[in-house]
């Protein structure tokens, strides 16, 4: 599922909206069927890292399914 921002967006203070992971990582999590909210984040500023997602999905470190 699409992750939700950890703080709801209030028009004036929207800058405080901090999402749980960087977009490519969110996308990867979605593709791998990993729920970001189920993870303990280990990335900077409490974000979920690519490694967290891959670990949860049991993927190889590179996390790439299409390399030749």
């Amino acid at each position, binding site marked *: 599922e*699409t992750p*939700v*921002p950890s703080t*709801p*967006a*209030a*028009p*004036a*203070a*929207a*800058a405080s*909206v*901090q*999402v749980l992971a*960087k*977009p*490519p990582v*969110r*996308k990867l999590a*979605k*593709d791998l069927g990993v729920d970001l909210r189920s993870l303990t984040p280990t990335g900077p500023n409490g974000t979920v890292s690519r490694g967290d997602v891959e670990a949860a999905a049991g993927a190889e470190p590179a996390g790439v*399914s*299409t390399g*030749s």
Partner: protein
Amino acid sequence: MADPDFDVLILGAGSGGYACALRAAQLGLTVGLVEKGNVGGTCLHVGCIPTKALLHAAEVADQTRESEQFGVRASLEGIDMAGVNAYKDGVVQRLFKGLTGLIKGRGITVIEGAGRLTGPREVTVDGKAWTGRHVVLASGSSSRSLPGLEVDGERVITSEHALRLDRVPASVVVLGGGVIGCEFASVWRSFGAEVTIVEALPRLVPAEDEASSKALERAFRKRKIAFRTDTRFHSVKAGDSSVAVTVEGAGGEQSVIEADLLLVAVGRGPVTEGLGYDEQGVTMERGFVLTDDRCRTNLEGVYAVGDIVPGLQLAHRGFQQGIFVAEDIAGLDPRPIDEAGIPRVTYSHPEVASVGLSEADAATAYGADGIETVSYDLGGNGKSQILKTQGFVKLVRRKDGPVVGVHLVGDRVGELIGEAQLIYNWEGYPEDVAPLVHAHPTQNEALGEAHLALAGKPLHAHS
């Protein structure tokens, strides 16, 4: 099947076919690529590339004509169509050479001639049958016409003829206000012709967000490109040196437009007739080949890619599908393509570009209350002011959610769609983009400003 000739046998070497071939070869598969014309197909020879060369020559003509406003004293003496065509053909030839070298370099067997599907995994070319463990149908598309509208190649022409014109027509009627129609209208106007576009739907580039159509129409009006929307073709009378086109407005009233030429740009139909698809039992609809989201037809081992498959008729969609199929065959389990995530660009002056959903489609998908939009006018964008171009960046997001649509109008904005497509496909939030302040002064800064605004913190825009 005992021992097929190839792992992958591809019928048609256009964008879809050759991309599939290149990727398959790279993955160690043997590839046969059947082509009756030139590798590169429509896009390279009579599509994307030559039209964009014309559009660039058109840009040069416009810049020269309007150079005075930038302090450059120059005069435009005329368009030398032989020169334009030499330039255009030169670009095509260079890329064609490069592609031929690539195909050869990867060890792909090119089979020259017209092919026909003569068995579930068999294509016959000039009497010789070739077999593949997998077959990929990629025979592309060609210009369509309307009932009762006969293309003579002289006065009533398609894009293919238009690309070979040896003169600038004094006046043209362009039938169809979609991408191809608008691009040719734009070129001819820049070259000095009187142009009238006739479009049956209520607006130009009707597949785009309504705001984009409006902005393009405004820009075309300024450029004195005439257009009649909600107007249908009725009939044409082609004379020796001109055409008289009768059209019919929404209320049924008829009028006649006279011009040197009529360009028929009412869409492109699949090239599938007589190729044996039917006979082999491929499921088809109105001539198109139907596939699932893995580009598989109903026949085991038979795939289809590119313009013969219903959906966007774009070269890079063909690339993407071709690559996808090669990877699927190689067992890499690629992820299905999100058709809405494929970027679309109309390369007219001004350009129109988009990715994701229009506002209307997003409202349908998520409810009018479930979305938010913002428009950032290029009037606030320094680089656009420098280029003296007008337009906007429009964003559609799901409330508290990702950006689901990006719509752009303005000269050169087609180049911004790369960034927009990452945001859409990676499901970026405006809040992800907002902190990354863009390079100043660029046009891509406008994309940044729009995201700042949508994140609730407009910088160079009123709150």
